[in-house]
């Protein structure tokens, strides 16, 4: 068992465990903080899976910006106190767990229906590309080449989101 495999399973366990805490903690603040832990663990998994640049983005955008926004809103609304009705009763609990269990089982089964071997790249292809073009460069090249138009449209989307957020959150429309 190589080191990367050990690291993978360690962070995978951490991600799953913190995700469980995230959905079971009554306090929204606690949930949010556990989610941050999950996102960090995922960043670590990204590194193991040869996506270092994405891992960095994960930390910056998700764990940094987005989660801060969440916490900010929670605190702004003063939701730190846990509410008794925040988690559903026994019936809702049973239904939710059952459905999610079935879904997880189905997705787990789907895992074996992976891509055909013929179109697979060699296992170290990503690492070699990163070594040749640089970690950022290997992602940036297709981004500014084949995916240039979607990339530009993303900027429009973000602009629209900013305007929308401001409009929605203003006290008087």
């Amino acid at each position, binding site marked *: 068992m190589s080191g990367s495999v050990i690291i993978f399973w360690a962070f995978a366990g951490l991600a*799953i465990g913190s995700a*469980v805490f995230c959905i079971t903690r009554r306090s929204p603040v606690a949930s949010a903080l556990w989610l941050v832990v999950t996102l960090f663990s995922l960043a670590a*998994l990204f590194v193991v899976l040869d996506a270092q640049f994405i891992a960095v*983005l994960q930390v910056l955008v998700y764990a940094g910006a987005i989660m801060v*926004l969440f916490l900010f809103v929670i605190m702004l609304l003063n939701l730190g106190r846990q509410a008794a009705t925040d988690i559903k009763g026994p019936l809702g609990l049973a239904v*939710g767990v059952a459905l999610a269990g079935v879904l997880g089982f189905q997705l787990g089964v789907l895992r074996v229906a992976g891509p055909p071997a013929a179109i697979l790249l060699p296992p170290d292809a990503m690492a070699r590309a990163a070594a040749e073009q640089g970690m950022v460069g290997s992602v940036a090249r297709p981004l500014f080449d084949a*995916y240039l138009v979607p990339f530009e449209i993303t900027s429009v989307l973000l602009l629209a989101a900013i305007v929308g*957020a401001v409009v*929605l959150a203003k006290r008087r429309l």
Partner: protein
Amino acid sequence: MLLGPALLVSAVLFALGVAGVLLRRNAIVIFMCVELMLNAVNLTFVALAQRLGVAGQVFVFFVMAVAAAEAAVGLAIILAIYRHRQTLNLQNINLLKG
């Protein structure tokens, strides 16, 4: 080589996200669970990118951008709802009923 385990972890995380959405009544926590599902999908993208080309990582980039936009707008909506109803408990927010 870690493709299979990564997809398994992704499936578990996604199911946990769904469970969260099903179990919780607090709008903001449900929102966080949606983010968790998005991240599970991101993990799938990254794992498959290892064997199918770097396009998967580019997709993750786009998902993050969309998630950021979504978070901004979604949280703004939550703010507006809270201001209007003084609660985020979805049990009390049933405006969808015709």
